[in-house]
């Protein structure tokens, strides 16, 4: 991941695109939480909604992947500006962080889907 004009521009595009996706996902999720919590949560209720539900899996899958793109790119600027951390070591660390988000997120979703 070099710092060419092309790479940087595509990173920026990915950041803004994933932001737009997340904005939608978060609004849906917030609405769901607010309405779900109002009636009280029970495990049976949640699992009845999620088990074998492909739409639900698809939605949260997109959510997790968008997070895995958006968070590391956001941290990239912050690390550079507030910690002075630039260069390949920073990018490698962020790539690892992206993998962590993706893996943990997908694991959680599959646990509730299967």
């Amino acid at each position: 991941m070099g710092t060419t004009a092309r790479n940087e521009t595509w990173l920026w595009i990915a950041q803004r695109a994933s932001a737009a996706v997340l904005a939608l996902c978060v609004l849906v999720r917030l609405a769901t939480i607010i309405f779900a919590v109002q009636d009280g949560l029970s495990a049976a209720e949640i699992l009845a909604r999620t088990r074998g539900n492909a739409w639900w899996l698809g939605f949260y899958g997109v959510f997790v992947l968008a997070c895995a793109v958006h968070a590391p790119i956001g941290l990239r600027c912050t690390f550079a500006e507030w910690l002075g951390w630039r260069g390949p070591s920073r990018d490698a660390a962020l790539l690892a962080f992206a993998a962590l988000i993706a893996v943990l997120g997908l694991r959680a979703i599959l646990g509730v889907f299967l």
Partner: protein
Amino acid sequence: MSARFDYRARNHPAYWAFLVHRVSGLALALFLPLHSWALAQALAGAERLEGFLRWTDLPLVKLAEWGLVLLLAAHLAGGLRILTLEFLPWRDWQKSLAAAAAAVTLAVGLVFALAL
């Protein structure tokens, strides 16, 4: 030569909007893996989920949840401000978008608090 944090030059709405956006982003990035991991642990089965959900009834956890929703709403509102500034043609009123973002954040936080 300048002070470590000189607020005098920074005391305008867009700066605070940025700071809230960045700090909330950092907090969310820290929380996200934790959240996924905890969820994966708890959802190993219905019984574990029930136990986990009872745990979510604790006041401390409720407070943390409320804080989290607030962070999420704040970061979202700040992000919408950025997207509007960057993609819509320039208008003077966009300066007050920062204020609108703050209002939206508060509104969502309150709604969630009421729902608890």
